[in-house]
């Protein structure tokens, strides 16, 4: 009996090995059955006349709000471009893989997309996975444009660019924004010292604060293992007389900070960066607590310009919610790719590596008007130049400040 079982097991093992090889071979023909996100018609895929753009981000897990927004935002841009005739006459094929905001899973997702013959990568959405994937795109020479990976090493190689501000830029821009608008004279910072995103923003914020008319009276840290009780940090900020608390953190912890401050009867202004985006979507969170919270963000859904109104209404019809800045970043990312590919004269039959070489040069020459900024341009280190904007939460929605 035992012998039969082990023979069976051996056969199954052998079969899976063969399946593994076969799977890789069929994947390359572009008939992706596993994906849930392809937009282009499968017919043109076979002829090879399409550009294959891959996307990676967390569509499940704690950071799913970001990943889904990026996935959907990019989808809208791709549908628009495809409807208008594509890039240099070729349609775009789009496939989005989940990484659950985990570096290892992001690399797996990247490998899946490579097997699919991805030519350009739009991603990844969050910083830590993005840094891991940037090592791979550098190795394979694939062009990478992250809509929202803010940490510096995301674009450390010359093939990688970003749509959003980097962490240092966010920290500096927040300090300038608070200073220029006289939002506070004494402020406190609560940041996650175990997270590169949070501590990166904090360092630049603190450096820029020296040039600004306010004073940092308390700089309190917490770590990934100690992020449920913020009463002590809040108490210190309160005792130091801070009237504004800068929160360069993600919204999960921010919801706790807001409710604990409320319990304490402490009512400072809260000011955060893009990590706070998503706070209004937390299940069972009392949105009243977020009233008056300010965010440094490049996108306000209530802006009245045509491009924003059009994007918001499309997003609303398609996905039943108001897009956040991540959706806008992703929408812009696709149009930036389009502009750079048109500038470089890319064609769908070019290899990923050739496209990368052509597009990374073109990125330095283009100027794109997008949802997240007008006249965006890029430097060789992958950073974008655009003006900082902020929004404030009023009656449960983002409202553009001045």
């Amino acid at each position, binding site marked *: 009996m035992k012998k039969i079982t082990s023979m069976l097991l051996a056969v199954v093992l052998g079969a899976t090995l063969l399946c593994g090889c076969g799977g890789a071979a069929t994947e390359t023909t572009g008939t992706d059955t596993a994906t849930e996100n392809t937009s282009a018609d499968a017919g043109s895929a076979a002829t090879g006349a399409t550009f294959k753009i891959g996307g990676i981000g967390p569509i*499940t897990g704690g950071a799913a709000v970001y990943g889904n927004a990026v996935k959907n935002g990019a989808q809208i841009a791709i549908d628009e471009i495809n409807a208008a005739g594509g890039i240099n006459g070729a349609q775009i094929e789009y496939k989005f893989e989940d990484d659950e905001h985990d570096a290892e899973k992001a690399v797996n997702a990247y490998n899946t997309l490579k097997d699919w013959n991805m030519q350009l990568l739009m991603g990844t959405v969050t910083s830590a996975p993005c840094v891991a994937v940037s090592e791979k795109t550098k190795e394979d020479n694939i062009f990478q444009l992250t809509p929202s990976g803010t940490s510096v090493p995301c674009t450390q190689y010359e093939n990688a660019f970003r749509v959003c501000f980097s962490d240092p830029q966010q920290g500096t821009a927040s300090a300038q924004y608070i200073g220029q608008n006289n939002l506070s004279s004494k402020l406190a910072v609560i940041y996650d010292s175990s997270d590169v995103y949070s501590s990166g923003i904090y360092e630049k914020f603190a450096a820029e604060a020296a040039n600004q008319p306010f004073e940092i009276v308390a700089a309190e840290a*917490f770590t990934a293992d100690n992020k449920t009780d913020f009463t002590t940090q809040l108490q210190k900020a309160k005792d130091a007389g801070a009237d504004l608390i800068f929160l360069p953190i993600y919204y999960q912890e921010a*919801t706790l900070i807001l409710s604990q401050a409320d319990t304490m009867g402490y009512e400072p202004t809260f000011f955060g960066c893009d990590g706070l985006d998503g706070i209004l979507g937390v299940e069972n969170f009392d949105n009243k607590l977020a009233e008056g919270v300010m965010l440094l963000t490049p996108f306000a859904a209530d802006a009245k310009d045509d491009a924003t109104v059009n994007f918001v209404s499309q997003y609303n019809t398609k996905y039943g919610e108001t897009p956040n800045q991540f959706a806008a970043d992703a929408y812009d990312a696709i149009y930036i790719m389009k502009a750079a590919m048109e500038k470089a004269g890319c064609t769908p039959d070019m290899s990923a590596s050739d496209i990368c070489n052509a597009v990374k040069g073109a990125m330095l020459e283009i100027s794109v008007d997008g949802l997240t900024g007008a006249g965006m341009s890029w430097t060789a280190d992958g950073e974008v130049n655009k003006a900082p904007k902020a929004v404030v939460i009023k009656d449960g929605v983002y409202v553009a400040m001045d």
Partner: protein
Amino acid sequence: MSFLNYLINGVSLGSVYAIIALGYTMVYGIAKMLNFAHGDVIMVGGFVVFTLSTRMGVSPVVAVLISIVVCTCLGMTIERIAYKPLRSATSLAVLITAIGVSYFLQNLALILFGSDIKLFTSVVKVKPLVIADGQITITGETIVTIIACMIIMIVLTTFIKKTKAGQAMLAVSEDKGAAELMGVNVNATISLTFAIGSGLAAIAGVLLCSAYPSLNPYTGSMPGIKAFVAAVFGGIGSIPGALIGGILLGVIESLSKSYISSQMADAIVFSVLIIVLLVKPTGLLGKKISEKV
């Protein structure tokens, strides 16, 4: 005044550690095994209450009662499936199994509920105690947690001292073999221990989530480890030790956050544990067990 505030923050945090530590120490004291899945049973308790009261609108009291029943059954099932077959195995094997159970519960919750954070509506309706013109606030959750700790401690101690089942537990904890010879049903006793321990976990879960209202599949793991530290600190196996250890740990954590460094707090807490264990290896209230030769 701010010192008092930090102290009270510490006591609130510590009372949560204490109530978790009670379950840890109870199971260890009797079954002589570290149930690392305890923290995750707490998380399950939290999710049961969240699903019932926030999503389905069941009244909080009923939800808590159901949660206790669910966790008790869960605890007994885990014991029956994962730990009982290993009764005669080395303690290391049991420990690793417990870690496995812990991951299993976390991943199960991940599949069922996703890892998005959920905000828990506090089930505690006690008004906060405000003293000194609003400069000091003691939350209702803290008051309830401390009272619950006290009640549980007294009930458990009386139960173990006065009832037959409790006496059987004591006997099992001292010597399983001898207890069996004396007619104690060892398996049933250990099963009962897990039932009580997991029921306590449900209560701890509700109070943990009421005090710190974020709920995700990993909610129980770090407080679980801290509570384990608290139990060791107070003397593992000792029920009053768990209470004292928990509260001291919370106070040390809060005070080191406020006066030394907010990011070094955990390092300081664990250093204190190392020092206590060096000076008094059995913990503050632990009994010294002399090996029979």
